[in-house]
């Protein structure tokens, strides 16, 4: 009986702890348009690779967690980096290029230990 009570108490305590809730990204559009569909389990896709102000981007993640989106210049030097916490599957985000010089870049999706999950080119004009 005592063991049962301890077990019940444990279940109660665990049950009262909050679930790990990731900060969900508030997407205006929940459905991923065809132009941003990604077949693979993870990856990154821009609605257009030629951009003048901003562009929509689908970031497809294998698991919920923390990831990074990196922008590199022609010599592959990192010039911009953001950290996101997002859910498994498709995540509709944006890339803003107003503060980037008109040039060619690459944009990367990596996990938090810098393993590349997706990569594409970005032309700012």
């Amino acid at each position, binding site marked *: 009986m005592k063991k049962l009570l301890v077990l019940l108490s444990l279940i109660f305590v665990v049950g009262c702890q909050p679930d790990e809730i990731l900060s969900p990204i508030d997407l205006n559009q929940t459905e991923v348009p065809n132009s941003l569909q990604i077949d693979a389990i993870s990856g990154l896709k821009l609605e257009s690779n030629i951009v003048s102000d901003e562009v929509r981007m689908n970031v497809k993640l294998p698991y919920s967690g923390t990831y990074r989106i990196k922008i590199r210049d022609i010599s592959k030097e990192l*010039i*911009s980096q*953001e950290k996101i916490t997002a859910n498994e599957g498709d995540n509709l985000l944006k890339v*803003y290029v107003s503060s980037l010089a008109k040039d060619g870049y690459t944009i990367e999706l990596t996990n938090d230990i810098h393993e590349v999950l997706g990569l594409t080119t970005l032309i700012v004009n």
Partner: protein
Amino acid sequence: MKKILTLLVSVLCTISVFGQSRMDYSPVNTVTQVGDTLVVKYQYFIGDKNEARLYQFDIQHNNKLLDVISNDWQTTSTSAQKAVNTWNGYKFTIDGTKDQTDFDGQYLSWLAGNASYGANADWSVQRVTYQDVTSLSDGDEIMKVSYKIKDKSNTNYTDYTNLINVNWANYQEVDGTQIDVTGQSNLGLTGIQGGDAGNVSISVSSNVITNNIGDGSDFSYTIYNKGENTNPITSGNFDAAGDATIQGLENDVEYDLYVSIDNSKTYLDNAVTVSDLALVFAEAIGAGDGPNGISTTFDYYIQSILANVVGTSIPNGGDVNFQDSYEILAYLQGVTTGNTPFISKTGEVYNVSGIKSTFGDEVNGIATVSATFKPTDNDKSFQFAHAIAGDVNFSHGFEPTSTNASIPNAAQSATTARSMMARGEKFQPETANIDLVSEIVDGNVIFSINSDIAEMVGSQFNIEYDRTRLVLDNVIFDTGNTMTNFSNHIENEGKVRIGSFDQNFEATVKTGTPYKLIFIPTVQLNNTAGLITFKVKEGVKADGTQINFIMN
């Protein structure tokens, strides 16, 4: 016996040569430059022959290299008949069975059709005829011809060694007897200078090009006559590779060439950084009198010019002191002082340029640059180097390569690590990992600079942000209690320059997150990709070693 025979042959030949009449032609003045007037005298020597009454000879000259100005008779006889006929576009082909200097023989061959004139646009022929009832005296000059020396550029000729030939001579006695005539085969000149230099190649070297910060087309040149700086002869831009071809210059003339960088380039705002500040502070602390004095911490003499941002105008240089270092610190902090410092930035550049091979060479303890170059026939390619004031570590300039530009170990300050190095050994930048990242936290955009690097006495980060979507709300420093932090916010350009520096070279930037920028979004944002970019990210150690940050 063989020697005696040889001697006899030589004597006979000499007697034979000196026995003939001669048609001599030689310059009467010295010429050295394109455009000079060459005067040639045509002279009669009787030799052991009978007196002549008819003196006729054909001269040909290269009309690409010489232009006849005048033909001036030198005889005074009033009874003489004289004529000069000219044909342009012809060149004499000799009778190859006879010596070229057998002038009477070539004449007879020409009459017989065994020597001839063929069309040749480069040559002109003049026929001189002088006839009198009395003979000329031995050594009399018949005619002087004045020629203007033309520029050989844009011709097929590389020198002036074959300008004038006498093709044949027809000297006749009073009864018509042909007289043997000889003379020299050719008149030419050497050492002629000047003239259109044609295509002169120049190039510029700078780390702006080498490190792809910009390219060669960001640079321009201006050329003056040597010693002038008010009326340019010509100017232009380099191409993307940093090369240019100049026309309109003259050979053997000295010119001064100055290289400038387009001061509208925004990367110039990244030229003067905390690394330069550290070098200047170290010099002010450790050197005392500067490189032209007792000791220095610099690697190159020219750094004393680039670092001397207050006081004596560029490029004269002078002693580097605390005023210079504090002026650079004020610049990084965005503080305006009462001085007009020589700190290069966008819109305001102080150029230093000169011949690359001697760039920064020491003369009497002072760095020098030479703007002077001189095109010649053998040298039409010149390399220049460029640097800018305030950029002491040459991040946007050319680091000297000349041995004479390096400061010897003996002149190094004993108070710095630099004194342990051999001559020519330079500070080598180190690399270290750092993390610069933006994210949305509680509705704000947070840009964090995370560092695990110890031993940094200075650091700098030039950040640019999208000011159409973000407003900078706060900069949080957590660098340690004794660091001098700076934050220069250029709001209308969306730029922030932040960093720290300990001017005593003792305290170091705290590890962790020493810098954090808080931005408030002005539009709805789901993420921050591309909103914040970083241009400069560098640190400096206590011994002056630059740390180049690398990021995964």
